[in-house]
């Protein structure tokens, strides 16, 4: 009797797994997500994956890649190019949105877009998956590398196979790529956030602090560097109270760190939040302490996640680029290169309305920051 019960449980579990697999399959095209700022969480998830490796990890990754391969094969039977767009990892909101953009671009342009990546921000797994796609034979590969150096050999292999190679979100080896899609001009973005902060504070003097996703995330550090330089040069009376506070890409930690911060520095006038969990996390701390009017917050955020803190002024301004457009532009540029078009400033390409902004011959800039404010 007990054995029967156990086998019943097991078969139920199997059925559930199968169902979950199908669910993943149908939505696999949309699956994925965290931006450049993922580099912080990247570390965390890579670590957790390492610990998970012995038993289930291979199964999980197989499950994740299987549906995408299936859909890829199905799409490949149609006409037009096949373009692989690979995020750092799937299953975080940012890369889910970029994926939706990439897939939409594929539909609009009438080409096949495969949007797939590892379930954790793992460079080795990206390499394995890319090798599979090279063997399978695709026309273009657009990758957001977890570790640019680790990509070099597989991208060289892709080039030798005549595949067009692009990077997006985060740069790969510039010598290997045909084009590089940048979310934003890092310098302009850091300075923009600083300007927004001072504008919300309404004063050019007082204390301010930085809360960041992680101290090792290169893009976040760049924005911080440019924001600090801009503040030093333009607002000499602003006082940065301490080094940036890291929050492990976690909203919970951003929340409790901000609470501590506001107690430690009661005269704090402004907080700059780098990386998307800081928007809702820091905002909630300000909201709970009732400091909406005393403390200004300008932070990265996904628009849907910050409606409640935007509404009462806890978050004064959310800054990010348009994630959907990032995926969309990546596919459009890949398509243009495949059609033999030259990527240069001022060029117009199919599917993208505005003329391109190109730096250093290869770097296509998505556009200015998208700001969210209370509606």
């Amino acid at each position, binding site marked *: 009797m007990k054995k029967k019960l156990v086998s019943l449980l097991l078969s139920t579990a199997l059925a559930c*797994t199968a169902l979950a697999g199908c669910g993943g399959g149908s939505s696999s095209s949309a699956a994925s997500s965290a931006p450049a700022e993922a580099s912080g969480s990247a570390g965390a998830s890579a670590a957790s994956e390492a610990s998970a490796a012995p038993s*289930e990890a291979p199964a999980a990754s197989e499950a994740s890649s299987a549906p995408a391969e299936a859909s890829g094969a199905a799409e490949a039977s149609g006409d037009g190019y096949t373009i692989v767009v690979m995020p750092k990892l799937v299953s975080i909101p940012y890369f889910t949105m970029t994926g939706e953009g990439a897939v939409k671009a594929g539909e609009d342009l009438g080409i096949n877009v495969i949007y797939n990546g590892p379930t954790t921000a793992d460079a080795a797994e990206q390499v394995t998956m890319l090798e599979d796609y090279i063997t399978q034979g695709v026309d273009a590969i657009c990758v957001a590398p977890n570790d640019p150096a680790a990509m070099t050999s597989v991208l060289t292999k892709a080039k030798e196979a005549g595949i067009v190679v692009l990077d997006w979100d985060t740069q790969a080896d510039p010598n290997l790529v045909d084009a590089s899609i940048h979310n934003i001009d890092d310098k302009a973005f850091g300075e923009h956030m600083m300007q927004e902060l001072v504008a919300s504070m309404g004063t050019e003097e007082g204390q301010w602090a930085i809360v960041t996703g992680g101290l090792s995330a290169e893009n976040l550090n760049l924005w911080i560097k440019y924001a600090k330089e801009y503040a030093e040069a333009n607002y000499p009376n602003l006082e940065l109270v301490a080094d940036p506070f890291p929050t492990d890409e976690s*909203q919970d930690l951003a929340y409790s760190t901000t609470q501590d911060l506001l107690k430690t520095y009661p005269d704090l006038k402004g907080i700059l939040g780098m990386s998307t969990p800081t928007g809702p996390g820091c905002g*909630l701390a300000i909201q709970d302490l009732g400091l909406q009017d005393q403390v200004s917050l300008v932070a990265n955020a996904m628009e849907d996640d910050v409606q409640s803190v935007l509404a009462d002024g806890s978050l004064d301004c959310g800054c990010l680029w348009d994630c959907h457009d990032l995926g969309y532009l990546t596919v459009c540029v890949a398509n243009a290169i495949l059609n033999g078009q030259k990527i240069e400033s001022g060029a117009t390409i199919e599917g993208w309305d505005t003329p391109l902004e190109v730096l250093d011959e290869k770097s296509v800039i998505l556009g200015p920051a998208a700001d969210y404010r209370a509606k």
Partner: protein
Amino acid sequence: MQKVWKNLTKSKEISILAIIVVLAVCITIVNPNFLTVSNFFDIMRSNSIYGIMALGMLPVLISGGIDLSVSSTITLCAVVMGKFLQANPGSNIVVAILLCMVVGALAGLVNGLLVTKFHIPPIVATLGTQTIVMAAVLFYTNGMWISGMPDWFLSFGDIQFGAIPSAGKVVGMPIQILFLILVGIATWLILKYTLMGRGIYAVGGNVQSATRVGYNVSRVTTFVYIYSGTLAGLAAVTDILIVKQIDPNTFSGCELDVIAIAVLGGASVMGGIGTVFGTFLGIILMAVIKNGLVLVRVSSYWQKVVMGIIILVTISVDVINRRIEKARLVHVDVEE
């Protein structure tokens, strides 16, 4: 023999308490804001999530097992509840809490069965369920945050008890801390006054003796995993009551922090040892370290280094204490 064991745990807890006091004094000297009721409530409120999970981990550790799946269980419960509340905004808080705890208990039951019926080592079984559940939840949610919880639910999280003047404001004890205290009392009662509780210590101390004395080892083992899962479910409610939305990625890897709290509080990963009082000290120590490092303005780049040093010191003080205790015992024995 039992007296000796009691003395040991006593000295262990006293050394943790001493470290907390020393830290608190140092931090207060640098920043008087630390020793205020409102700060204490704030830090215990955000750490109550980890505290509740650590209290669930405690019986598992005492029984000689380990539960790595608390991170996936809390995520699963949070997502299930988020989706449930979105679909049924007219529900009530009792249903929401019960739902979370039942889902957590079921997840724990699966772990318990894997360990007892299939004889899979706990570390492997719970690692497996953790990976499967986490992956399934991420497939289902695509990592997208769930927000838009009903107002009655969110306002429940703002309930405070009492009114204590502190730092120019009047603060009450947040409901999340009440959860933590209730869970602490329940765990203490179970461990101290029930047959099951004595069984947990017995199984962790020596499985064979426990079997011979007549404890049903399978039942005890299954119970501790169900208990851990149930509390992870309650921790999910507590978390949503604080942050008001659900990020399916936020808890990945949190099982290590949870185990660290229990071990800091004197539980042994070898089984047989651990108390609720010690775990509470572990929670407070962890909370004080995290909060204090910001308050004394330690540079972010050094915070983790300092944290590691404090953990090492705490554990070494305990080890040294034990060694002294042991040496003293031997000496007494010889004299007798």
